[in-house]
């Protein structure tokens, strides 16, 4: 294997690391967006006034890259309407008023898995998507051609500051992870299963090594704590040495990458038959009175999670879905947590260390901290001159938006934002030429 990729040393701030998770169920209503994944939104299959129980399907999968949605509380469908998500896109959402009883659906039963098709069907019926943040429907990854199933990589890096929900899963629910891995190994020809974990999580590493000892195909790869270890391509490279370059996915180098919590939810489904209806979410940030990991029904409004943590100590400057490096700012606290939400953070202005943007001093920090060797100053110059080819040559399309460059920039240049703009412009240009 070649040299390790570079990155940035971000502050860990994992305040919730050794705290027990708190479960909330007393939620008066949940908002279930039909789009909590990459791909086509699900189609609502309930009507206003319908009674639903936990685990009942309320959104039908719509096409190949899509995922079904299940009721996370028992109660009555009150409203089906368009809502605007934090990424600015609109989607239909089903609002369920809880009856407070949290009754499970009678249709829930342990699935029988006798073949690969059964397992893939189970991933579908669980409504499983990538829970690390991306939200890509899991079953699609496992529907690839037979020869691509060489390495299964479990992402337990959890390289973003604050977040500990994956650590919580690895430490407390390792049996579910093991169950999912063994079922997959039974029906897929993977040669290796590698669990990648950053070295700042000794407890999780210990638990995962325990399950790795039970099967010689499973191993744990301890990674240095250098953001962005959990970036898909970075993880594939650091665990297997395989390089998925520009425009390539892990599957192109015969790897399937899954978040550890995704695996745990699959295991839970195989064990109980309960689809994806709740999620462990890290609630943290300097404005939160008592940072906690909270297990909450999917669709719970963010404000309920903060209330559960003793509300705000100070007025938050930013509220973020996910980690502070790649997360998305939330416009309103009325928005719900979704399948792929692993954290909600209420950040103070001080801890963001945000400052006014000033002129680039060409210090080279962005270039020298980019895991992929991208050259942001050259890209910015090319974009200003309208030379798109030059921007592509300097790697703009390779950018995974991990944020190392913007994080490290002493002039606080919005480098990632600039790359997003250029990539979008390139996409439009390509579409226009067709």
């Amino acid at each position, binding site marked *: 294997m070649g040299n390790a990729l570079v990155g940035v040393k971000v502050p860990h701030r994992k305040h919730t690391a050794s705290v027990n998770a708190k479960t909330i169920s007393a939620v008066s209503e949940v908002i279930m967006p039909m789009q909590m994944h990459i791909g086509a939104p699900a189609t609502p299959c309930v009507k206003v006034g319908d009674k639903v129980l936990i685990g009942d399907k309320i959104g039908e999968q719509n096409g190949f890259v899509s995922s079904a949605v299940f009721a996370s509380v028992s109660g009555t469908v009150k409203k089906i309407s368009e809502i605007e998500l934090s990424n600015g896109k609109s989607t239909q959402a089903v609002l369920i008023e809880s009856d407070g009883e949290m009754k499970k659906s009678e249709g829930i039963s342990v699935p029988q898995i006798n073949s690969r098709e059964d397992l893939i069907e189970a991933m579908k019926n669980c409504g499983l998507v990538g829970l690390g943040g991306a939200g890509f429907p899991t079953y699609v990854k496992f529907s690839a051609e037979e020869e691509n199933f060489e390495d299964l990589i479990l992402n337990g890096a959890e390289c973003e500051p604050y977040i500990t929900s994956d650590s919580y899963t690895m430490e407390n629910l390792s049996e579910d992870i093991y169950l999912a891995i063994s079922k997959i190994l039974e029906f897929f020809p993977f040669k290796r299963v590698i669990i990648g974990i950053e070295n700042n999580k000794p407890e999780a590493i210990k638990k995962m090594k325990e399950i790795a000892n039970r099967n010689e195909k499973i191993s744990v790869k301890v990674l240095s704590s250098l953001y962005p270890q959990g970036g898909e391509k970075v993880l594939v490279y650091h665990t297997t040495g395989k390089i998925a*370059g520009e425009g390539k996915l892990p599957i192109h180098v015969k790897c399937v990458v899954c978040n550890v919590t995704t695996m745990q939810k699959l295991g839970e489904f195989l064990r109980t038959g309960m689809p994806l209806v709740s999620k462990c979410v890290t609630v943290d940030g300097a404005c939160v009175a008592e940072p906690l990991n909270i297990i909450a029904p999917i669709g719970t409004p963010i404000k309920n999670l903060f209330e559960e943590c003793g509300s705000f100590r100070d007025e938050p400057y930013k509220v973020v879905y996910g980690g502070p490096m790649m997360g998305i700012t939330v416009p309103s606290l009325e928005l719900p947590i979704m399948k792929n939400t692993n954290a909600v953070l209420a*950040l103070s202005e001080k801890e963001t260390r945000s400052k006014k943007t000033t*002129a680039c001093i060409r210090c080279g920090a962005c*270039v020298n901290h980019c*895991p992929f060797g991208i050259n942001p100053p*050259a890209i910015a110059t090319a974009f200003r001159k309208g030379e798109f080819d030059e921007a592509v040559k300097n*790697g703009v399309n390779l950018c995974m938006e991990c944020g190392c460059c913007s994080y490290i920039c002493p*002039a*606080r240049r919005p480098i990632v934002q600039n790359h997003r703009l250029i990539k979008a412009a390139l996409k439009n240009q390509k579409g226009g030429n067709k």
Partner: protein
Amino acid sequence: MEKMLHISSSPHINTHKTTTTIMLDVILALIPAWIAGIVIFGSRAFLVVAVCIAFCVLSEYVFNLVIKKEQTIGDLSAVVTGLLLGLNLYANTPLWQCAVGSVFAIVIVKCFFGGIGKNIVNPAITARVFMLIAFSTMAKSAFPLDSTASATPLVNLKMYLAADVPTGSERLITLLFGNHGGAIGETCAIALMLGGIYLIIRHVIKWQTPVFYILTVFVFSLLVSKFDLYFATAQILSGGLMIGAIYMATDYTTSPLTPFGKIIFSVGAGAITCLIRFYGNYPEGVSFAILLMNILNPYIDKWSRKRLFGGDK
């Protein structure tokens, strides 16, 4: 709805470093050299540097005022330019020349090109070269070329090399502590190295630049002198090499982005320095060498691009 929350593109946290903290680190790193200069050359050494700093900051302030640009003196880069220029002048430089040099550095070299990050050559070095050319024939000048006025170690070393039978020259310990003729901030090698180590530890500069620059001069000197260790060591401790290699060749704006580029830059600057020192008319070549490499910088940046992940270049 309640109060609107702040919406922005990721990432949502940043490093503690800013342009100002970086400049502050450079200033801190140069303070020992300034103090050494005051100890060696007296209070005039303080005055010359202070005048340079004052005029650099003032001219940037006035320039921004005149062209109605947002004020930028808060980034402290003008202080660094003034400090570096002052430390590169002799203690007996007339103060009006210091003022003219400072205004030249900031207004012509920096602001006319668009301010911080946009200048193509190092302001302090260019101003020093400007002063060297403009004022050197004057009786009271920044750079007395007449050898009776100042016998710097480099002049002595040139004679040392030319002599068939080497005569004694400055002792290395003298060069290390800087108690000899020269510009205010360039003579005390120990103070300069101390500041350099601080900057490397604070990740303000990369070690490649000073190390490769100094190493190149050392090796070149060894070859020229047929492996005279005294001569080569004296070369790296004399003249403006330390201050140039640690503080001027590392200027972000005018040096390459990547470590590999920095190595090309430093080796080139080291070679040019030696060519001027050993074969040129001037006893010293650091300023010219860095200036020349500054001009080549855009090309070096192109040649030294990092390989993209999965790319074949």
